[in-house]
């Protein structure tokens, strides 16, 4: 135990020392080093690994015409485009109207899809051979897969969606869980980017949930939206707009929740590591660098928390998707809470 603590302390000292070295070795000519907080979080046109930047293709539409360049530099070299405030603009002043470029976040989404696809295809090939169906599941990986799958199916899908048709939604819920987990966990890798800290990614996922919810909505779901049963007709003037608004606020909250959780985790880590430089500015480099021991330890703790939150947020997204789908596909038994007259009006036995 003491050996472990000593090793951890040496490691922490080493880490804080290297941060001191990089800070001291960075020659600043006449200007303050600025840590670009949002620059670490936002999307880029390059894919960074081992400190090298691989520039990705740019595909966009400007002035009613499509342009395809192998990267931003070649777009600038062609002379047709110039950089204004960090964004590409055509030399005659026509801005980009539709940007379909492949960015780092998009690449990480593809990685997430690929990982989820590989794991599920591998597991399904094992199950087709009969391993896990006729015999017990073999190996750590298959057992782990089964733990997650059974958890999604029994604790989320079966619990919140109607017993009759929950099986239809298990594939979506499981794949969205796997994908979000991978996307969140990619952010913990060195040079890694968590694509879920981008509102467009989470909004797309929430949009898929929204469409699945609406297309599978039962008759009762739509009746509750447009003509709420069991209330005075005049009340429906107020209730119908509220219910229609409610259709859209649910996926909106879903998107914002995942996005804000991942973003705040990243900003928090950058801010805490930034305290080293703030301390160095106020009290001098020595105190700043040695206070790094505290901040690096705190950041390590936050990393463990982030690894937990990555899975928790994937679980919450899946859970809430299941709850919303379950609310839409549920067929109410109107006799519990509506008058017989309402029942006749709505068509008895819905």
């Amino acid at each position, binding site marked *: 135990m003491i050996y472990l603590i000593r090793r951890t302390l040496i490691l922490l000292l080493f880490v804080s020392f290297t941060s001191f070295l990089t800070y001291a070795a960075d020659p600043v000519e006449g200007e303050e080093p600025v840590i670009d907080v949002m620059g670490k979080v936002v999307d880029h046109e390059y894919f960074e690994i081992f400190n090298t930047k691989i520039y990705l293709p740019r595909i966009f539409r400007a002035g009613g015409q499509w342009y395809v360049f192998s990267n931003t530099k070649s777009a600038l070299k062609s002379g047709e485009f110039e950089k204004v405030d960090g964004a590409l603009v055509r030399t005659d002043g026509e801005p980009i109207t539709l940007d379909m470029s492949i960015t780092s976040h998009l690449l990480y989404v593809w990685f997430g899809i690929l990982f989820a696809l590989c794991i599920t295809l591998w597991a399904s090939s094992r199950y087709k051979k009969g391993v896990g169906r006729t015999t017990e599941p073999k190996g750590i990986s298959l057992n782990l897969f089964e733990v997650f799958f059974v958890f999604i199916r029994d604790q989320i899908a079966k619990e919140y969606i109607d017993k009759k048709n929950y099986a239809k939604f298990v594939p979506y819920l499981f794949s969205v869980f796997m994908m979000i987990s991978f996307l969140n966990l990619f952010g913990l890798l060195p040079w890694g980017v968590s694509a879920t800290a981008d509102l467009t990614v989470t909004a797309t996922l929430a949009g898929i949930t929204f469409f699945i919810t609406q297309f599978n909505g039962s008759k009762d779901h739509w009746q509750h939206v447009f003509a709420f049963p069991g209330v005075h007709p005049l009340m429906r003037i107020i209730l119908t707009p509220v219910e229609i608004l409610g259709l859209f606020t649910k996926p909106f909250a879903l998107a914002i929740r995942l996005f804000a959780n991942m973003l705040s985790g990243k900003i928090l880590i950058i801010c805490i590591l930034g305290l080293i430089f703030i301390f160095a500015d106020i009290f001098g480099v020595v105190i700043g660098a040695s206070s790094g021991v505290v901040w690096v330890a705190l950041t390590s703790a936050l990393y463990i928390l982030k690894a937990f939150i990555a899975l928790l947020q994937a679980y*919450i997204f899946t859970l809430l998707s299941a709850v919303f789908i379950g609310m839409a596909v549920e067929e109410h038994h109107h006799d519990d809470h509506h008058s017989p007259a309402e029942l006749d009006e709505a068509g008895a036995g819905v």
Partner: protein
Amino acid sequence: MGFLAAGLGAGIVAIGAGLGIGMIGKSAVESIARQPEASGDIRGAMILTAAFIEGVALFGAIVCVLLALNITV
């Protein structure tokens, strides 16, 4: 001015979310103490409700970040 608003806003958001999640935790622990065999269901409901509160709190937090970074949407 934006910084002041962002700081105050973040604090108020934290108060609200803390109160809400604290109340959930209180009642969940009480219910588990009263009925330990239902702890699984209670835990699920607790996480679900906490997620809703967290979502609302994060709306506020995002607005504060936008204020502090001076981003006009």
